[in-house]
């Protein structure tokens, strides 16, 4: 089951650039790109860092694709 994330939308809403985010979280820009395009699932540690960084609830940032389908139904 795929994990979907809303990092790009949240990041753009807060007006943070990928470079700034990479500097603050000490990760590469390529990793941010991969996470935003749902090509890479961050480790639990990085996921928790992302939640703390953007200060949003977990379910707003990450959820399973199946949960989205159920929600739409």
């Amino acid at each position, binding site marked *: 089951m795929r994990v979907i994330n809303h990092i790009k939308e949240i990041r753009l809403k807060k007006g943070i650039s990928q*470079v700034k985010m*990479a*500097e603050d979280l*000490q*990760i*590469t*820009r*390529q*990793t941010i790109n*991969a996470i935003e395009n749902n090509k*890479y699932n*961050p*480790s639990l*540690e*990085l996921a928790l860092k992302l939640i703390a960084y953007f200060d949003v609830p977990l379910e707003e940032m990450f959820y399973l694709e199946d949960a989205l389908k159920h929600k739409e139904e």
Partner: protein
Amino acid sequence: MKTRYQMMIYVFIIGMIIIGGLLGVYLIGKEEGEFSFGLAAAVIVGSFGGFMISFLYSKWRKKRNGNIPEVDERSLLLMKRYLLIVLYVVLIGSGALLLVLYAIGVHTIETGMLIVYMMLLYMLIGIGAVVVKRC
């Protein structure tokens, strides 16, 4: 602390390259009866030159990209996967190569050829690792 470790690693690597190069110069000198100081100088200057190039490149990169790290959890994961694939390719590939050589009638291998083969392997694995790191 991190810079101190980095410096120690750099000094160790350069030291090993120079020692290896000088050992090569010594072995060649012993074989031919004359030690080539030009070659020894090339080993030392080349090692320091190579170090300076990588050092300046990392400085330029830091200036351009700010405080973004070169390696993170994803690049380590990619590297792990790459090295796992490389392990099997090298093991199975080398085995297959040996079988093919035996089948075509090559029953002895010169150690010099093995050194060249290992060098090629190291170079290819190194180039692959750089490409994987940039993905």
